[in-house]
Structures are given as C-alpha cells and as structure tokens.
C-alpha cells in the first residue's frame, strides 16, 4: 500500500477521466428528484425599459403551469452579493434577482414561471405579458461617460461607478521630460465566456427541517452558500450547496446568479424541488460577459527605447450591475501595465462604467489579458518608434533575474522570475531567424499572403490570494485562504477534502499527487472530495489560478499534520524514541535499521481503534489545515506567434505558436500543458474570432453560437509548449505559481502583434480586436488611403 514512488512532477493520468469518458459523470442537468418542478425565466427583450406591469394570468392557463411570480412577489433579505468595492466612494446599485421597476439590459429577468415539465415552464414563460415602456439605451463604455448619455441607474446621475488609481514615482515629470512617448489606444472587445455546459440549478427543500440542498453548476459553492443566506434570509447553517461535475467555468460560474436565489426562494414558497437549466441563448444574455475596455496606454522612454515610465487610463464596462467581483476584475491587471519591465514611474487609472448590457465580470485571466494586451502591444509600438527589433526592446527592459521577492514599478512584490530565460527558450523553439527569413522572402516577392511574427513576454499575478493583502490593500470583502482535511481511514485509504472546487482542471488528480507524496502512499489510494459544503465546509473555491497555488499547499500542510501524528504512533508502537525514526522512502524507519519501519497506513488502524495510543494523542488519523499565502504568485513566459495574412481578404491564419511558461514547480506536466494549450487557443479566439456585438438599441447581435464565433478544431493551430526555466515561487512551500490563466493572458497580444507585423510594410500600425477579416481589411485600406490604420 505504501510506496516510494513520487508523484509530483509526473504526468499522472487523471482520476476524473473514467466517469467523464463513459457518460457517467453527473452534471447538474443530469440530476432529478421526485416531485421536481421546472422554472423558466421571462427576460426583457429591451435593453432599457420601465416595467409598467407584469400579467401572468395567461401563463397560469397554460397546461402544466403551476405558478408564476414577478419581481414584486418576492421579499429579499438583501441584494445579490457584490464583494469587491474597490473604492470607498464606489456607486453600487443593489442587484435584486428580478427587475421590478426597470429592465436594465436585454435578458434582465422580470418574472419566473413554474411548470410540471421543461416544456410547460417554457410555454408559460412565453405567455407572460409584460408592459414595457422602452427607454433609450447605452451600450458603449465611452458613450456612457458622455454628457447626455442615457443613465442606467437614475439615482446616481452618472454612469461612472468608481475610479481606482495607482501612482508610483513622478509620473508627470517623467513623461514631460522623456525624449520618446508612445501613445496607444486599444479597444478590448467584449467576450462571452461560453463554458460548454450552460448553467443549471436544482433545489430540493426539506419542508420539515427547513433545510435546502442546492445543486448548481458553479465554481463557488462556498461563496454561494453565504451569498444565498444573505439574499434569501435562509440560515446559512440550513443551506447545503453542491457543485457536482461542472462543465467548464472560465470565470462565468464565479458568480452569484439571480436564478440561484430565485430557485431557492420558489422552492421555499412552493415546498417543492425546483430545477432550472439555462439554454444557450439565455446563457448569452444571462451569464456574465468578460473584458470590454477602452485603454489609453502610454510609455515614456529614452531614444534607445529604455523605458522610463508607464501611464494607462482604462474605461471598463461593468454592464448594468456590479456583479460579485466586477469592480475588481480590471484592477487585477492594474499592477501589470508595466509587464515584466523596469521603469521609474507608473500610473494606472481605471474607471468602471455602467451600461445597458449584460453584466461584465471575471473571464479567464480577468483584468490581466487586458493589461497584457496594453503593455505587450505598446512594446511593439515602442520598438517601431525607436527602430529596434521587438526582441531587443523587450530584452533591454526586462527586470533582471531574481530568486527573492522583488518590487516592480507596478507596485508588486514579485516572488521570483527569470524573464530572459523563457524568451531564450522560446526563440530557440520557434526558430526565429528562419521565420524572419521566410517573412522577408514573402515581402520581397510581394506575395498576397504576408507573414508576421508577434511576441508576448508576459508577467501575471494570480493565486488569489493573501487574505490580508486582498482585504486591506484591495478592499476585497472575502478571504483568500484555502482549507483542506486529510483523513486516513482505518484500512489506510485516504480521503482528501478540499475547499477548492475544481471544474475540469484536474484538481482531483494533482491534489491526490500532493497528498500521496506527503503520506508515502499510492495516488490511487487517495480520493479527493470537494464541491459540497456539507463535506467540505470551508473554502474559497476555484478561480484566479488558485487551485494549485493555494489549494495544494493547504493539502500538503494537512497531510504533513497527519504524518506528524502517525510519526508519534509509529514510535510508540515500535517502542523507540520519536527522533530515532526518520521519514524515508514512504515510511518511518529506524535510524541505522531501515527495515524496522512503519508506514502511515500501518498506523491508521491503531489510530482508529485507539487501544494503545501514546499519551496525549487523540484517536483517529486526520488533520485539517488552512493555508493563507503571504503573497500572490507570478507566472511569466514568452509566447511567439507567426501568422499568415491574406492581404486581399484580411483573413488571418496562425502558422506557428510557441509557448514557454515558467509556472514554478510543475505538479503534473501533462495537465499543465493542457492548461496552457487550452488557454492559448482561448486567447487566439479572443484575438481573431470572438466578439459580443450590441446594436445601438442594446440588442445582442451575436446572440447564438452561430453568430458568436468560438473557433473549432479546423480553425486553430497546434501549440508547441516548452520549458525555459523553473523559478519556484517563494509564496508557498511547494513553489507553485499557477497555470490556469497564463495562456489566455499571454496569447492575444502575441497574435495581434504578429498581424500588425505582417502588415507593417503596408503602413499598418494598428488593428481592431478581434482581427476579423473585415477589421484586417479595413486596417490595410485605411493605411493605403493614408494614415496609420484604424485608430
């Protein structure tokens, strides 16, 4: 049962796979309970409208319809949780689960219909008559800040919710005196996260005890439990939230949604189980969106391109309401507008703005893809301005390698880093010189299809997070620690309970690897339990690349405590002093006589029956730990992309993509690589394909998967993933830096820089995101017609 095999660092096959591969995984929509009713939400077709009346009488006549409720039919204990008031004067409009007076975005819920079947509930929802008085809508973040724009929340008299800013050094002075100032403007288009599993909820009430069980396709069962108690008034102690198999999240299920509060409240009203399953069309308006910023980015430098200062002004579209961490989402990138580079001065200002659109919140990378876009594309602009190669401009401005925490000009205390190392490795893998030759050959021959090469030597911050820092510095309402319990059953099999809630990343596997190594047992003897607040009562769930960086150290810590206790039992049973036993090759071994040994499983039975435990040792063999890191973690890397651009049609094809990332200690290289590849492809989608488009009236035009272009397998290239350096994080003992978001953070500017590089001889210096055929074609045409391309 015990083993000397080490698992951390090995490509262990996933424990999650067998059930998912055979159709035996249970997602929320796969669950049903006796007596279950279905809920359907009536949604506003208008982006902005006064609700003059809701008439449910026709709906109640539809066969199979049981009940219908409008906004006024509920009494809420509080609004849906907004947990990140980034400034003291932030304007927050309480978000109630149903709009009662005004609909503020297309898709805003105005009523619910409850039916005996999925079809009956939908038929009923169609028959609800809502009397709307449509109002002018505003969807564009810049327009929303203009005088005379429609106001989303009348009481505020403005659409600006907050301005968060950060200044280090003498910014104005540096910019005033700098020989070179590069000024760029980028529009980060809105995206729809599109976890392939739409959201789903099932609530089962126990009328006798007053308990409620809610299954939800959520990333955050623990946060949700608290938020549901605050919204519905149901005691938190009587709420059990379960996130079963979750079909992807990407931040979109890091949310407290109206439908969760509604299903719970309706279940309470009717005393019957309630199920709600989102359709994809609903998902596009009712599940939060991501990105949507306008950036003004400036770099001050000397004539050689040595950077002196950074200045960024960001307008961030919040949508119609501030959702759980929405105000802080752009702030997560607020310290990174200098990337991995040095400087003397730094200023970032972020203004959150209300619009009549689906609320915007965390989407894979949350704030950091945006900041990385700004700095990495501005680096290319700087290189063009001072006539330097894009590699050289990065190299000369990198922070030098460091192994102890070091302060950046952006204000971060970075754990460790070696930025040139990943760049060197990536250049070699990419065969950079050869690709430049091919590019030149195409340029020389005047080929219709031109080649471009783009870089992104990114730095990010993740591993959310040190509770004191995120609370006291960033004004986040929650904590950032993670909890774990490690329990050794009498027969030596181990259960790990984590407060993190993996939903596809492979957490069960890597957590088992970490526990198995600490306990000297086989990875298949470890089961990992999570996502059920009755089983794992403590935790902050999974987002912000925290599963490995914060979740795993908690497990290691709890397992170490188990080992400590087993040590005492082993010494007692072997009748030797504690320090005569050393932990070696998966067992406590007598110094000088290693065959006299006891494994942890061998102590478990004794611990359980407690017939002969050492004095002061409690029965049982389990331990819990709370790990609260002192700092964030800071993965970095170099991504290089080559594209081919059809200069007649504007169509872009990625020819080659190399990603070299330093994520500190790698728990499972196969899974880490999977995270990188998936993230990079999601970033390529961001750069080239995806955009949520609203028309002037606030209708979502890209309203289905046919008009919102998630790329398929034929549309994206293979990604080459390499290793450059391993700089263990100094934030946690395992040295982990986090990998869930790196690909999505790094890749968009690499692709976009490549597109601009391909077209630069045509005079193109700028490209609108995403680089669709039309946007590329316009950039070429505008450059040809004079000027530097689309602004």
């Amino acid at each position, binding site marked *: 049962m015990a083993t000397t095999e080490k698992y951390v660092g090995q490509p262990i*096959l*996933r424990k*999650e*796979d*067998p059930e*998912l*591969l*055979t*159709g*035996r*995984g*249970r*997602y929320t*929509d*796969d669950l*049903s309970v006796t007596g279950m009713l279905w809920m359907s939400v009536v949604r506003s077709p208008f982006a902005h409208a006064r609700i003059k009346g809701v008439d449910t009488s026709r709906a109640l006549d539809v066969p199979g319809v049981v009940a219908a409720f409008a906004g006024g039919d509920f009494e809420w204990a509080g609004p849906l949780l907004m947990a990140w008031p980034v400034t003291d004067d932030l304007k927050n409009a309480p978000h109630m689960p149903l709009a009662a007076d005004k609909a503020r975005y297309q898709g805003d819920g105005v009523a619910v219909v409850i039916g005996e079947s*999925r*079809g009956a509930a939908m038929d009923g929802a169609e028959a609800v008559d809502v009397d709307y008085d449509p109002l002018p809508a505003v969807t564009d973040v810049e327009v929303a800040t203009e005088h005379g724009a429609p106001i989303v929340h009348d009481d505020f008299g403005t659409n600006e919710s907050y301005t968060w800013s950060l200044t280090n050094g003498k910014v104005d002075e540096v910019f005033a005196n700098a020989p070179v100032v590069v000024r760029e403007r980028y529009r980060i288009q809105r995206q729809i996260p*599109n*976890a*392939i*599993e*739409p959201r789903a909820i099932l609530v089962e009430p126990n009328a006798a005890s007053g308990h409620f069980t809610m299954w939800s396709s959520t990333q955050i069962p623990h946060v949700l439990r608290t938020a549901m108690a605050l919204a519905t008034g149901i005691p938190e102690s009587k709420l059990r939230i379960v996130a079963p*198999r*979750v*079909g*992807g999240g*990407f931040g979109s299920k890091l949310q407290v949604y109206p439908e969760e509060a509604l299903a719970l409240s309706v279940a309470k009203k009717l005393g019957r189980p309630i199920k709600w399953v989102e*359709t*994809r*069309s609903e998902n596009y308006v009712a599940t939060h969106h991501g990105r949507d910023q306008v950036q003004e980015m400036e770099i001050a430098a000397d004539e050689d391109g040595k950077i002196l200062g950074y200045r960024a002004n960001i307008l961030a579209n919040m949508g119609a309401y501030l959702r759980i961490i929405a105000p802080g989402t752009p702030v997560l990138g607020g310290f990174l507008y200098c990337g991995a580079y040095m400087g003397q001065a730094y200023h970032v200002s972020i203004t959150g703005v209300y619009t009549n659109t689906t609320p915007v919140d965390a989407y894979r990378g949350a704030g950091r893809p945006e900041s990385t876009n700004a700095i990495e594309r501005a680096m290319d602009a700087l290189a063009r301005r001072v006539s330097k190669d894009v590699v050289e401009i990065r190299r000369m401005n990198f922070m030098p390698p460091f192994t102890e925490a070091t302060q950046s000009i952006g204000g971060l205390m970075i754990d460790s880093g070696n930025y040139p190392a990943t760049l060197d490795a990536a250049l070699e893998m990419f065969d950079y010189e050869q690709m430049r030759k091919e590019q030149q050959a195409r340029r020389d021959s005047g080929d219709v299809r031109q080649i471009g090469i783009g870089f992104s030597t990114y730095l990010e911050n993740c591993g959310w997070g040190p509770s004191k820092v995120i609370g006291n510095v960033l004004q986040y309402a929650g904590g950032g620690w993670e909890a774990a319990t490690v329990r050794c059953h009498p027969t030596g099999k181990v259960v790990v309970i984590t407060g993190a809630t993996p*939903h*596809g*990343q*492979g957490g069960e596997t890597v957590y088992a690897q970490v526990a198995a190594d600490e306990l000297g047992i086989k990875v298949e003897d470890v089961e990992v339990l999570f996502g059920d607040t009755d089983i794992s009562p403590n935790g902050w769930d999974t987002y912000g690349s925290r599963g490995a960086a914060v979740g795993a150290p908690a497990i290691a810590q709890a397992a170490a405590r188990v080992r400590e206790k087993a040590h005492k039992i082993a010494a007692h049973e072997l009748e030797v002093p504690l320090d005569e036993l050393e932990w070696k090759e998966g067992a406590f071994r007598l110094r000088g006589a290693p065959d006299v040994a006891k494994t942890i499983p061998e102590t478990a039975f004794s611990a359980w029956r407690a017939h002969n435990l050492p004095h002061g040792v409690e029965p049982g063999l389990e331990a819990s730990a709370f790990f609260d890191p002192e700092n964030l973690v800071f993965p970095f890397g170099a991504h290089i992309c080559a594209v081919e651009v059809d200069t007649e049609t504007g169509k872009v094809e990625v020819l080659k993509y190399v990603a070299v990332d330093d994520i500190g200690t790698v728990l499972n290289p*196969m*899974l880490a*690589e*999977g995270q990188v*590849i*998936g*993230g*990079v*492809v*999601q970033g390529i989608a961001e750069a080239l394909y995806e955009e949520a488009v609203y028309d002037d009236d606030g209708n979502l035009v890209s309203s*289905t*998967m*046919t008009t919102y272009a*998630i790329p*398929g*397998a*034929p549309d*994206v290239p*293979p*990604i080459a993933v390499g290793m450059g350096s391993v700089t263990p994080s100094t934030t946690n003992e395992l040295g982990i830096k986090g990998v869930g978001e790196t690909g999505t953070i790094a890749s968009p500017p690499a692709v976009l820089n490549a597109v601009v590089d391909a077209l630069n001889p045509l005079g193109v210096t700028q490209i609108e995101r995403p680089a669709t055929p039309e946007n590329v074609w316009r950039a070429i045409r505008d450059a040809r017609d004079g000027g530097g391309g689309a602004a």
Partner: protein
Amino acid sequence: MTNVSVTVNGQSREADIEPRTLLVYFLRETLGLTGTNVGCDTSTCGSCTVLLDGESVKSCTLIAAQADGREVTTIEAMAQPDGTMHPLQDAFHRHHGLQCGYCTPGMIMAAASYLEENPSPTEEEVREALEGNLCRCTGYQNIVTSILDAAGSMSGAKA
C-alpha cells in the same frame, strides 16, 4: 402524444411522448441516459452527438420520432460491458483529451463515426471532421492526438 420505438444501445425502447420531444431529451429524460449532453440550441456545439444507424448526428436537432424504428448508440454503450474502455475513450484518457468532460461524449461519438468512414486520417482531416464539435477547455490539440492514436490502435486491431 406519439409512440416511438427506438433501439438504443442494442435494446428496444418504446415510449409515448410529446411529438416535440427532441431525441436528446428522449435519451436523457425518458430513458435516463444522461451521458449525452446539451450545450447549445443552434445545432452548433455537437455535445449532443450520438450515432443514428451508425452515423454521427446532433440529437438536439432531431425529434425523437425521426429515430423511430432506427438504431441509436450513445456514449454509455462505447465501453465493453466488463468496463474495458473503447480505444477512443482509452486514448482520450492517455492523451489528456478532456478537461471538464462536457463536450467529450459528443467528441467521442463524432470521432467514432468518422473513423468508420476514414480509418486512417491525417491530423488535418481529423480537425476537419471535428468542425461540428466545440470544446472550450482543451484547445482541441489533445483531442486530435487522441483520435489519431485511437485510429492507429483500432486499425491495428482489425488487421
């Protein structure tokens, strides 16, 4: 109500259902075969892919009545009764061809149908064959690798 009789995973299944019942809900809710997932409402994502008379179809874009008298195979029938995984399932496991797993049954059924048509495809052909199946987690790369690997072991097994 309309009566449908479908051979599902080798077993004859019959039910009276509303005519509007989509094949996917007949499988999931009438028969309890929840391995087939629903990811969209526009016939785009392919999560609901099953085999109809041996060929891949999107079960969200057929009404169950269209399968009346025909054979449907779902992910639940891909492994052997003794639990031995189908070569595609095994290859997805070994090559980390899935993360959240939601698109996976559809991917596997689409691949199974395609490999019947083309037992030894190229990487590019596999990518083309997956055009009707979206994955948000993997970036497709390990899915393609898995299918190529399975194609090799399946044609090897037949030879």
